[in-house]
């Protein structure tokens, strides 16, 4: 099931929250060897987790964390603008219609289906909130996974080498891409819309957005 939880909402589900931060430690710290901060509980957090972000999580049938990502509007503090502006035109990318997506994480053993479900959720956010673009930071191996599930970002540039290679990219979503990603996720668009409505409270929206 796709969950959409702002930081304060996720904090009310401590087991799920712990698993997400622990899986992030596992992916970014242990597997990729990034220089991240892991606390005594084994949880990886950075400064942007303190900015009240919106998290999107894949929650498996047993309630566990399958994968997640983190959104913040580019009008506030973002990782892309603080650390990667040399890859994004030499200055801040800033608009309430462009959100940043970071810390794209898959739990050990989670595959393309979970990645596809998360991208499907990204499409719901874009469609329903009138957004035009996401700008994302992701580890280089994700580029292949994104391509396979039909949600390739446009890579603006990369920094670092090997496992530590970090890429910055852009996403837009078309209806055609939505259908393809839904197929990759093994989910129907209707199911996805239902989860979105459950999180954000009922539909004012028309079937197709502008």
């Amino acid at each position: 099931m796709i969950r959409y939880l702002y930081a304060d909402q996720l904090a009310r589900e401590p087991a799920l929250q712990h698993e997400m931060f622990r899986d992030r430690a596992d992916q970014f710290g242990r597997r990729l060897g990034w220089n991240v901060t892991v606390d005594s509980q084994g949880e990886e957090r950075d400064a942007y987790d303190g900015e009240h972000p919106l998290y999107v999580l894949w929650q498996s049938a047993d309630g566990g964390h399958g994968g997640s990502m983190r959104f913040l509007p580019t009008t506030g503090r973002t990782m892309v603008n603080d650390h990667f502006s040399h890859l994004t035109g030499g200055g801040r990318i800033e608009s309430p219609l462009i959100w940043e997506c970071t810390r794209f994480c898959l739990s050990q053993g989670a595959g393309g289906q979970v990645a596809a479900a998360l991208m499907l959720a990204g499409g719901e956010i874009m469609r329903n909130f009138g957004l035009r673009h996401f700008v994302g930071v992701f580890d280089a191996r994700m580029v292949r996974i994104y391509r396979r599930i039909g949600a390739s970002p446009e890579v603006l540039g990369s920094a670092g080498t090997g496992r530590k290679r970090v890429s910055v990219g852009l996403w837009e979503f078309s209806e055609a891409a939505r259908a393809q990603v839904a197929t990759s996720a093994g989910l129907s668009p209707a199911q996805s819309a239902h989860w979105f409505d459950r999180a954000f409270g009922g539909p004012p929206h028309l079937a197709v957005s502008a």
Partner: protein
Amino acid sequence: MGFEAAQPKLDMVLRRLEQSDALEALQDFITELRDAFGVNHLVYHWVNGNGDQYGCGTYDPAWVQRYLDQGYLRIDPVVLGCFQRFHPVDWKQLDWSSKAARAFQKEAIAYGVGNQGYSIPIRGPNGQFALFTVSHSCDDEAWAEFCVSSRRDLILVAHFFNQKALEFEPGRLPEQGHALSPREVDAMTLLAVGYSRAQAAKALEISEHTLRVYIESARFKLGALNTTHAVARALSRGLIVV
């Protein structure tokens, strides 16, 4: 009910808003923006980290007084549902199930607020939080249509209005951000001399997708609702030279 294409009117108001240097003028601007959107009401309300508040809008002053006297801030589902959020919210998505919330809504409608609403939460610097809200009386279908067709304009106007209001905050330090990046300057310059997006992307050796992101970001920094207006602002401010 026929919401009309608002952008030309909105742009005129935004250009004057940008030049305004009086806090009192915001009340007039919000009325003009309300008229340009063609809705019953438009309201702006901010709170900063010190608990200072400021608001302006087109609601009946009797309703505003009633709201303050009754301390409705504590039960208003719009405020409760938007705090610490950053996505736009249709009032129908909020939790109106409590007895207090239902009574509050009934009273708001009696004071002419309307049965429909759409609120844009805004996060400013240092814990500032603001809400920019349109409300109206119409059926659900017409409202959904208005929200989908106007939400991007509403989101942008909400942020432009908030930036202006913040300029009047006591003890405020001068704004540092919003400079166009070198690539944004390049993109706006090529559009200003008449290049199409495809030609501009080719000249800059970037994709059209990347170009669209630079244009979107430049548009916001320039306080404009569309690309034509953004190019005009960049030229008039001397940010680009052709």
